[in-house]
């Protein structure tokens, strides 16, 4: 599968490495590419450029990609890039990493497919404590 990963920080680079190790065609895009973070095992393509810029995304192959994960360290960048991918390029599967739980809920309401590590962690902790999940979206079983 061809996947574009936006972000070359902890989340983005880690995800790109894992997807690459599983045999996917991965393209990483970020303002600055951290080769060390990507590691020697990574055999995809890394492009330095703004993740919200349509021309940069075109260069990353967004017209043909099957999936895009917006996972930069900046929620706003992720939210905007994900909407560009969906509305302009009609990418089949778009996942958006959003750190702020309130904003995540809002954008999920607007139809984005979101991942919120904090909300997931809180759910998981509540589940472990036998308190039930904060929201019943299957992020974890309680």
């Amino acid at each position, binding site marked *: 599968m061809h996947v574009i990963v936006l972000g070359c920080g902890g989340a983005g680079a880690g995800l790109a490495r894992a997807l690459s190790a599983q045999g996917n065609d991965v393209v990483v895009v970020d303002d600055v590419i951290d080769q060390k973070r990507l590691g020697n095992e990574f055999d995809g393509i890394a492009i330095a450029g703004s993740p919200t810029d349509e021309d940069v995304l075109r260069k990353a192959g967004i017209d043909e990609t099957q999936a895009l994960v917006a996972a930069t360290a900046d929620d*706003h960048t992720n939210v*905007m890039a994900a*909407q560009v991918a969906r509305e*302009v390029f009609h990418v089949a599967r778009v996942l958006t990493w959003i750190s702020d739980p309130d904003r995540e809920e809002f954008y999920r309401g607007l139809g984005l497919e979101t991942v919120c590590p904090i909300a997931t962690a809180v759910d998981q902790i509540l589940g472990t404590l036998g308190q039930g999940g904060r929201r019943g979206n299957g992020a974890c079983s309680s």
Partner: protein
Amino acid sequence: MFILIVGGGRIGFYLAKTLRQSDHRVGLVERDGGRCRTLAEDLGVTVIHGDGTDIETLREAGAGDAKYIVALTGRDEENLVVCQLAKSYFKAPLTIARVNNPKNQALFKMLGVDATVSSTALAAQMIENALPLNGMRIFSIFQEGEVEIAESELTANSPVVGRAVSQIRLPEECVLIALVHHGKMTFPRGPTILNSGDRIFALVRRQSLDALERVLLGEGK
């Protein structure tokens, strides 16, 4: 009317100041604490110190009562988030975003922002307007951009000099709207005679600009 501005940089500051002078209620959200104090002291408006892309901060700043919400931070990504929260969460009737990259103007409209302002595009436009290209200056004042105001100065060689407005065959989608004769602005009517040195303003559809130029300034220009 309450207007909420997110981003207290130079544009935010002058907008708040101008709106205050026309007796509107203005609120400002600014992330930098020092800048907040300056804004509050200089403007006498309520300034909320915080992140304008944060729902709680927006609520505290009165986003729920705002008629207009204007996002003026230096980052397009943040301005988009502010406007989307304003529109869909706080139901603001009108949202306006500053875009730094002119390419984002069309995108923002597509994503539900009501209006965009690009200072980059505006500056480029104003500089272009100041340059008399091909003997005509063009003022693109209508957002749709299909219709322009064109200004041209008549020279002694102009084919229309010495003739009355009614004798000129203008392109179809074009109206002469003003004439400056010896520094005095007049309204051109049928009998008005055009003179060398007159500056003439026309409202014209963009496709007819070339045709208008040929009529007023001649083929050789």
